[in-house]
């Protein structure tokens, strides 16, 4: 049997059927058209401007920029920071491979292909190579998106964009075969402890590579990325190689980029060879991960309810909790029990402790001038943004995905309040635990103790209200998918952006972060009130979608 022909034909059928589906409902193309329009806008704008720019000035500007660069720690930290993020991601993926196998397959493959007389190794080889296509497409789009702002300074064309995409694509593409290799080797030789130790040792060495130059410098933040941000770090496997390819725009040396690409392809060939010679009958190794991949896809599409127990760390906890009250209070009781099993305490958990700990560490280090207060402010704003998105994700889980929320005999307002009550308590407690020691240690403005928790709660509630309004107010399907970004865009444009603008204005005038946050709070207070009012108004229209 020619497995490659068979599999290729199957994929061509799937591709054609997808095209037919798009032709049946061209509305599906609208979001993509929007993305293309977005990119085109930036690129066309560049095209218009580039004709007006005197090219001789660019050389002068570059010389000036090079002089500034010598002293520019910010640039070094940016490069080092991005490298660090990629390294953390790599270590996480390597560690993950010791826990769970990666799968290139779907459940249809498991049920139809694995039981057929097709050669196991050919199926695996086909899917491993095929994985390059989605990685290429994703990487190219990502490159286009992330370079949309750079095209005013660089001459971006298909060639250099293609090379940069390769840097991203190869990094993400090769992770899956590596994870598959790690799992396969472990299944055969039981080398899990060794791999784990290697991952931890690598993490330790990388940690030292930040700590040592940081301690050697005048100020820690000036030296911390001196090593991993240096050009010789381009030779570090995967992360360094990709950086070497991605920075083609800067060095413009095609041989360097091609060299790293070649190293990638040689590594891939080697990995495939080792996997094929060790995988054997890998079917049962991939069954579990294929199943969970499918579940994740269904959850993402909303076909399956997202589990509330995913990150629970105390699920076997025995509880003897008394009744809290009657009617809608049962929802609060349910959330309390659920939260008791998710963490070591229903009101404050280990994740909260970790986030608060980071802030306190920043505060302590700022006293030794390792970090400026701006790092703490940036961290606080990041947390506010995270809570905003967490609020938006809240409608996918919990009570709104169970019929009881609708069936319980109580008023809508009391059900809504009891549903979010615990979240509000948790947010406030977390915010206070984080901000009080941070303010006292770093000697920040006392006003932050009030402003930060208030801001967190308002952003969380607004995020929740936006998601709920679009979910309840519009029927299932494309209209919701199209309306949701419009609602989010509208609230952002007419609500959040003016609130942030008020905050920025207050900050510029006063040069005090606390007044900036006060400005945001005043603006967001109005936004939150309006959004909660709208939510309560349309909550009675809530429908239960049985999955």
């Amino acid at each position, binding site marked *: 049997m020619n497995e490659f022909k068979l599999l290729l034909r199957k994929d061509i059928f799937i591709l054609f059927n997808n095209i037919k589906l798009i032709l049946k409902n061209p509305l599906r193309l609208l979001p993509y058209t929007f993305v293309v329009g977005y990119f085109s806008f930036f690129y066309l704008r560049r095209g218009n401007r580039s004709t007006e720019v005197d090219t001789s000035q660019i050389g002068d500007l570059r010389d000036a920029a090079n002089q500034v660069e010598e002293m520019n720690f910010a640039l070094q930290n940016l490069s080092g920071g991005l490298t660090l993020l990629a390294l953390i991601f790599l270590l996480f993926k390597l560690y993950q491979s010791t826990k769970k196998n990666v799968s290139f397959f779907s459940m249809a493959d498991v049920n139809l292909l694995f039981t057929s007389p097709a050669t196991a190794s050919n199926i695996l080889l086909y899917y491993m190579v095929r994985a390059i296509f989605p990685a290429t497409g994703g990487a190219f789009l990502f490159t286009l998106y992330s370079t949309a702002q750079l095209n005013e300074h660089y001459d971006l064309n298909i060639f250099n964009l293609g090379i940069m995409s390769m840097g991203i694509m190869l990094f993400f593409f090769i992770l899956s075969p590596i994870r598959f290799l790690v799992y396969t080797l472990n299944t055969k030789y039981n080398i899990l402890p060794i791999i784990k130790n290697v991952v931890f040792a690598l993490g330790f060495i990388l940690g030292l590579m930040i700590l040592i130059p940081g301690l050697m410098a005048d100020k820690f933040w000036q030296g911390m990325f001196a090593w991993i941000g240096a050009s010789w770090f381009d030779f570090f496997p995967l992360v360094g190689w990709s950086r070497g390819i991605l920075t083609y725009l800067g060095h413009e040396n095609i041989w360097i980029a091609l060299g790293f690409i070649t190293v990638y392809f040689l590594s891939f060939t080697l990995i495939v060879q080792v996997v094929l010679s060790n995988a054997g009958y890998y079917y049962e190794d991939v069954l579990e991960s294929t199943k969970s991949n499918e579940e994740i896809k269904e959850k993402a599409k909303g076909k399956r309810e997202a*589990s509330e127990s995913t990150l629970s760390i105390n699920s076997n906890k025995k509880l003897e909790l008394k009744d809290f009250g009657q009617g809608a209070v049962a929802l609060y009781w349910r959330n309390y*029990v659920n939260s008791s099993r998710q963490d070591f305490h229903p009101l404050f958990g280990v994740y909260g402790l970790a986030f608060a700990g980071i802030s306190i560490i920043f505060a302590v280090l700022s006293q030794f001038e390792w970090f400026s207060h701006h790092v703490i402010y940036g961290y606080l704003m990041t947390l506010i943004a995270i809570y905003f998105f967490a609020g938006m994700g809240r409608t996918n889980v919990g009570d709104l995905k169970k*019929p009881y929320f*609708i069936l319980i*005999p109580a008023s809508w307002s009391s059900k809504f309040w009891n549903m979010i009550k615990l979240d509000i308590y948790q947010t406030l407690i977390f915010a206070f635990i984080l901000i009080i020691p941070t303010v006292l240690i770093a000697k920040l403005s006392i006003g932050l103790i009030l402003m930060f928790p208030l801001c967190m709660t308002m952003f969380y509630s607004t995020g929740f209200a936006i998601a709920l309004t679009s979910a309840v107010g519009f029927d299932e399907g494309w209209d919701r998918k199209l309306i949701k970004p419009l609602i989010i865009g509208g609230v952002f444009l007419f609500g959040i952006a003016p609130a942030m603008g008020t905050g920025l204005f207050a900050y510029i005038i006063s040069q005090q972060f606390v007044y900036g946050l006060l400005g945001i709070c005043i603006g967001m207070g109005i936004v939150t009130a309006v959004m909660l009012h709208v939510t309560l108004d349309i909550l*009675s229209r809530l*429908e*239960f979608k049985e999955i």
Partner: protein
Amino acid sequence: MEFKIFIDLMLAVEGLVKKYNKQNAVNNITFSLDGGEVVGLLGPNGAGKSTTMKCIVGLLRKTAGEISIGGHDHLSVEAKKLFSYIPETPHIYDLLTVKEHLQFIAQAYSVKNWQEKAMELMAIYELDDKQDKLGRDLSKGMRQKVSICCALLPDPQLLFFDEPMIGLDPKAIKNTKRIFNELKAKGKTILVSTHLIDSVETIADRIMIMKDGNIIGNDTLTNLKSTFNQDYDSSLEDLFLELTKDE
């Protein structure tokens, strides 16, 4: 809203329409259930049985029509106190144990001394040794049993069963049939949608048959047989297949 004409009825549905996009899933149907009546709702897949039931209990928004439960608008808090609903897919919480599900329902429906009743229900459905198990660790059949226990705990006047037997083992099916009889003896009103025709044949006072969103038969089994020229010896299954066959 006026419900004068329905005042003696436990459930009254008037001109119910449910549209999904432009397609009618339920097409202007009208029916009612008297207090203490047991009605079997039959129909092929996609006939609109579940949609009808979900519109009645308020899980889906109706496109048009009026629904009253015990003389109250079906979406009112008063109406919700009167009924329980058992969905075809059991929806239980991942991080609540079996017993905690019952405690949750007891609080939500203000059930006094719920522990005794909960123990009794858990014993009937052989959940007593699993009362401390989390929802996520239960099989689909077990989840369905929990869902049934949750619906029975408040001891409501009106019960909606949407394919309650799916996923149950033979013993649980037998127990559910027995519970139907006990509920009927207690004078409860029941609307049960099922594909297991024999499970309603003996117990139902009336049969409603749906097809393509319409009610094509709504009477006692004897009257339906005579209306559609069926032999007295023929079964409900024969009648169902005759009525729902494609033209």
